Every structure is written in C-alpha cells, then in structure tokens.
C-alpha cells in the first residue's frame, strides 16, 4: 500500500522520531510504514489520519484499482 506519510511529515518539518512519539509507536514502525514495508493496523491508520487532520484515503492509497464509481463519489465529497 502506498502512502503520503513522508510528504505530510516533511510539511510539518517533523522527524520520524517526533511523529513516532505522537503516535505512540517506535521510529522503526514509522520508517517501515513510510517505506511501504509494513501496512499499519486500522487503529494506527486512524491515529495517523487524526494527527495530520486528514482522511485516511488522503494518506493511504491502495494499489489495487477501485471499482469504477465506488471510490469516485467518496473522493468528490472530501
């Protein structure tokens, strides 16, 4: 699963360690999520979304193609 975590973190000028501290996880975990080697659990994904004041879909992008007409209305509503 792709994500924009590194970009969002850079926007706030936070280090991986600072983000990890806010999320209550290790820096190793933040790094593994950023590099796409580990997909976070749903609670952690929500926690990340809350930290950046965004919706989960704005941060995590599934590499599978969503069926046409299903994802589109959600995105339009954002």
């Amino acid at each position, binding site marked *: 699963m792709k994500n924009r975590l590194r970009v969002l973190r850079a926007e706030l000028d936070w280090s991986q360690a600072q983000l990890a501290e806010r999320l209550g996880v290790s820096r190793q*975990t933040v790094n593994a999520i950023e590099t796409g*080697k580990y997909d976070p659990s749903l609670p952690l994904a929500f926690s990340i979304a809350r930290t950046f004041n965004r919706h989960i879909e704005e941060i995590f992008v599934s590499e599978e193609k969503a069926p046409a007409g299903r994802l589109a209305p959600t995105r339009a509503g954002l």
Partner: protein
Amino acid sequence: MSEQRPNPDPTEAPIEPLYTHPASPFVRTETPQQVDMPAVPAAPSSWVVYRTQIEFGLAMLAYLMVLVGSVTVLQANPTAEWRYLVAVLPVVPAALALSIFVRALSRLDELQKRIQMQAFGFSLGATALLTFAYGFLEGVGMPHLSWTFVLPLMAILWGVGTAIFTIRYR
C-alpha cells in the same frame, strides 16, 4: 446608530461589518483555520527508553544475589530441614524477571510485536532443528551435551531472528 451604542469609548464599540465581512482584507490576513500544528513532543527520558533493560537488569541482579546467598547457606547447612525452601528461593526473582519480560512484550508496538512473533517462531523451530540434529549425531557416537545448552541456544537464535526480521522491515 448612536442610540444603539451608549458607550462612546471606541475600544468598546462593536466591530463594524466592514472588518468582519469575508471580503475584508483584514480577514484575509488571519492565520488559516486548518493549520492546527500540534506541539513537537519532547524527547522521552532515558528511564522510559531503557525501562525494560533497567528493570530486567535489576531483577537479574536480584536473582544472582539470591542464588549466591542460597548456595552459600545450603553449603553451610546441607542437612537442615528448611533446605528445600532455601534451594527454591532463587525462583522468586526469576519469576519477577519473567513478569518484567512479559510486560515489556505487551508494551511493544504492532510492528515490534510482529517482529518478535517471527523471531520467537524462528528460534523455536531452529532450536528444534539443531537439537534433533545433534540428537541423531549423539546416537552414532558424538559426545553427550547437557540439556542446559538448550535455553542459551534458543536465546541466541531469538537474538539472531530479531536481527533478521528487524532488517527485513527496514
């Protein structure tokens, strides 16, 4: 308008619509609402970072002290009635170390738990493999090794497994 504003003090006067209207340039200079930057958290103290190591180290120190004390007392009183109680006493700090270890595991985050699960699985399987292999070799004449080697072997393989699976998520 003047009867609606009994107080002539200009600082007390209500804000004129000109300045609160969305088209006013004064509104535009305000900080955007969305920027709600949380404060950068402070670095955790070394007690928090090394809590497990400190607790576990203290428990191990207690274990060694009780063990040495127990052995010393038992050597001086080999036939005393209470020797069984003294002999089993080192289990108490060892149980403390076990409880510290289990609590440390529960404090790990989700990725660390996954890594530990894989490392434990690896160490269990690899220990079984090696001990069985050596068991077969003993059957054809290799020297007998003590069972006490099994735990250190498992601990070493656990460390190796942790390193392997940590690198894998890097």
